[in-house]
């Protein structure tokens, strides 16, 4: 009755990029988190337009720490790209080294984000502008934090006996998500740091 027509025994058990399910999972989460960012920015702009006192409330934020943060974030795209490549080639040595670099970069970024917060001229409870600055900066901060934590765990994993096979696919997936963290920062940076200056 039943007859096999397709033999799948020769197929690989993992792959890279959009061939595997985790990539689509990460992609979906990027979609929904991106929607969250877009709505957050939308809310900020809505108040900027409807509130008469907005220019008075919207004190420009200091550019120093945010500029450093942005710079480091942009530079991090390079080791991130290299991880993606090394993972696809399953080169354990390179992946280990690059993950160490990315972990360090991530920790630096968290430090810079903390400095950004401490340099804010408004508190979240001062006015709606302050609330939005803290919300948006915090929202992005949480993304940085979670991906750095993920990177750290992955780094440790790569130095254990589990650093083989499918773990390379995980490393690649992690690098994919980092691009989202980098890209989502640009609109936030423009809105938070530059919009009030015009």
């Amino acid at each position, binding site marked *: 009755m039943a007859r096999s027509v*397709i033999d*799948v025994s020769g197929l690989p058990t993992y792959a890279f990029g959009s061939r595997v399910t985790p990539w689509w999972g990460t992609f979906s989460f990027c979609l929904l988190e991106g*929607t969250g960012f877009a709505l957050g920015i939308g809310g900020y702009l809505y*108040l900027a337009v409807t509130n008469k006192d907005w220019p008075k409330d919207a004190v420009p934020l200091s550019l120093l720490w945010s500029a450093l943060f942005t710079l480091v974030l942009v530079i991090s795209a390079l080791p991130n790209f290299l991880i993606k490549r090394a993972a696809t080639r399953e080169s354990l040595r390179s992946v280990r080294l690059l993950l160490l670099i990315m972990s360090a970069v991530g920790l630096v970024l968290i430090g810079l984000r903390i400095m950004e917060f401490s340099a804010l001229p408004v508190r979240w409870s001062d006015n*709606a502008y302050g609330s939005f600055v803290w919300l948006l900066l915090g929202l992005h901060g949480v993304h940085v934090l979670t991906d750095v934590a993920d990177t750290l765990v992955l780094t440790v994993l790569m130095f254990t006996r589990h650093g083989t*096979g499918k773990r390379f696919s995980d490393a690649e997936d992690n690098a994919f998500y980092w691009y989202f963290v980098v890209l989502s920062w640009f609109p936030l940076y423009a809105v938070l740091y530059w919009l009030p200056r015009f």
Partner: protein
Amino acid sequence: MSPAVEERHETRDTDLGDEELRVRLSKTWGSARGLIGILSTVDHKIIGIRYAVTAFVFLLAGGIMAIIMRLQLARPDSHLVDAELYNQLFTMHGTTMMFLFGVPVGEAFAVYLVPLMVGTRNIAFPRLNAFSYYVYLFGGLMLWGGFALSIRPDVGWFSYVPLANLNFTPGKGPDYWAQMITFTEVAALAVSVEIVVTVLKQRAPGMTLDRIPLFVWTLLVHSFIIIFAMPAIMLASSMLIMERLVGTQFFNPDAGGDPLLWQHLFWFFGHPEVYIIFLPGTAFVSAIVATFSRRPVFGYLPMVLSLIAIGFLSFGLWVHHMFVTGLPEIGAAFFTASSMAIAIPNGVQIFCWIATLWDGKPVLKTPLIFVLGFFFIFVAGGLSGVMLASVPIDTQVHDTYFVVAHFHYVLIGGTVFPLVAAVYYWFPKVTGRLMDERLGKWQFFLAFTGFNITFFPMHLLGLHGMPRRVYTYPAETGWGGLNLLASAGALLFFASFLLMLYNMIASARSGALAGDNPWGADTLEWATSSPPQPQNFDRIPCVTSGSPLWDQGDHKAVVGGLKVDERELVVTSLTEARPDIREESPAPSIWPFLAAFATAAAFIGSIYTPWAVTWGSPVVAILLVAWFWPKTIEENV
């Protein structure tokens, strides 16, 4: 990939006969016994049933709230409940029905049926699936536990600021409400991601895009709507709770905020929410109409395109909930046009279903009868929706019982009637036994008359000036008679659900045995046993048609070469569903439960002190690491 490892798990499904294969696979894919085993399971069918049962319990709870409200409103100037309790009741009724019943019950069917319909062995990210269920459960328990402890939100399911702010509503009620929202949204988002990935990547070989069952298409669109809509409410509810707990100023006009910002965010979610609840209903209708007309639904392409159009348009309507806030005229006009436009894809769907019935020879079993009730009620509700889309008419009927009537016609007619149909239709698959037909027809009679007696008069009440959310009304308004009529109908309607409950319990014990495919349906869930084995299919089917069970006859094409002692499933390519990878599906794990528990504890703690987030996060993080940490070397290959 070391050869030694490959060696140990050599047994493939092609090596075994049917009987032995079934036994071996069900051992590989089964869940352990005992408490830990129960809490560790990642079987989408078990979790789907849990979702459904929990959602039905909340339906009953929300229904009891509704009955108490109807008893209060049955007579003018009634003192059965006071204003305070009434406000709590309608808040809990709306919140429960929308967040704890309406959305999760759709998820329940999606989680149970989609993997079966696309012909795979488990949902994508099954541990996330288990996690999502526990988060939903804890969210619901928190809200109702709070209710039992007199921590009761009483500002409506929409929690408009500034009424929901601390200075107008002290106490913890709205905080519990806001956190419960976050819980259920996390759950819904997680399930949506799983469904999207399951549909896109785990379809059986050969199930190309144009062979995906309409049911699955509908839930795919449904999941995308959730992915784009729910972040709005998560953002909004987080903002509300921050406003209440740490003194942010998002909605305070004296500090540059705007109470309308809440409404925009809430309804940006809130209108798609209606479609999030309604689309599973249309999925049920598509499946049931096809089966009982004995042919595929007319117009596959128009149906799919309509679904996608509904998905897009549902995001362009939210302002019609805000027509009376004094918007600029041109903006309101745009939303009138878009709100009316969504009637077109809905009309196309209705037409295609009726055309299917026309072309076929409909078999009037209970599921189809409930679907006919759906047509009668939902079309009326949809048309009164066209009236609400008109700004001038809306200024008269907005926030009156006309709107109450309208959305109950849409949501009960559009979702609950198809849902009951779906229960009768898939009950044999889930339990192996058919539900009683005679009781089903009685239930339909009760539900249909009860529903219309309850909700039709509400149109008139609204036009006669009765606003929503009033706990009583003076006798001289003349609303007493119609209210009494509505209350009588509500009792009938409620009784219909008790009858269904009885039918379910009785039929689960002693209903007629169903067999694999009692309705002679065409989709893959009917190709396996009732109830299905843990592995869903002993051999993964290959699909060559949009109606595989009607087209294939005895000639079942299947996949061969999967490992028997590991949880392997076939990942296929996006559009053509060509087999691509043998991916390992995660095994049962207790960590999702523990992580959900810790998340719940941190969320509830955060209502009392923001520091709960600070000390809760590391705990959750540690549990997540434990969840994802590979336990064996085999998990790496």
